[in-house]
């Protein structure tokens, strides 16, 4: 399933809404999750799963072309843990 298919399915369920309203609603949904993660927060959607961020330590990397050692600074990376209900639905 891709984004446009999700929008279509929702539009079909909500014939009272204009297609562009459905599209905007889906955009808001994912944008709010992304924004909260970018702010360093957590997103918890019971049954579906929880999004959070984890700190990656800085490390010494190497430029594969030149072999030069470079500092890779610490950074935050996204993390997702599926919810209990989701895990159960995937393994009936």
């Amino acid at each position, binding site marked *: *399933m*891709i*984004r446009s298919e*999700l929008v279509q*399915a*929702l539009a079909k*369920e*909500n014939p009272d809404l204009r297609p562009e*309203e459905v599209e*905007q*609603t*889906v955009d*808001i*949904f*994912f944008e*709010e*999750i*992304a924004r*909260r*993660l*970018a*702010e*360093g*927060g*957590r*997103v*918890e*959607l*019971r*049954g*579906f*799963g929880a*999004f959070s*961020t984890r700190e990656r330590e800085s490390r010494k990397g190497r430029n594969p072309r030149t072999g030069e050692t470079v500092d890779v600074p610490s*950074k*935050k*990376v*996204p*993390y*997702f843990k*599926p919810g209990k209900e*989701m*895990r159960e*639905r*995937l*393994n*009936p």
Partner: protein
Amino acid sequence: MMRSVGTLTRADLAETINRKMGFSRAESLALVESILAHMCNAMADGENVKISGFGSFVLRDKKERIGRNPKTGIEVPITPRRVMTFRASQLLKERIANG
């Protein structure tokens, strides 16, 4: 100072939809539930879900392996199972890395 941000929930998502789209609170919450239900259903049917600009939810099938009860040390088989992983898009990774 870094402000600590709380946890975003369904209610918060519905609230933003209510405010930005002008749908009723009940309607906004129903839309949030509906988005999640469609994604859940697709994955329960064995489909990956790909949201451009956000990321992909990818299913992986794990084979049976031997685990150990960490308390008792007794070996137990871990049954084969399907797990769901999230791969953030390049865009989302950059937004998170840069804070």
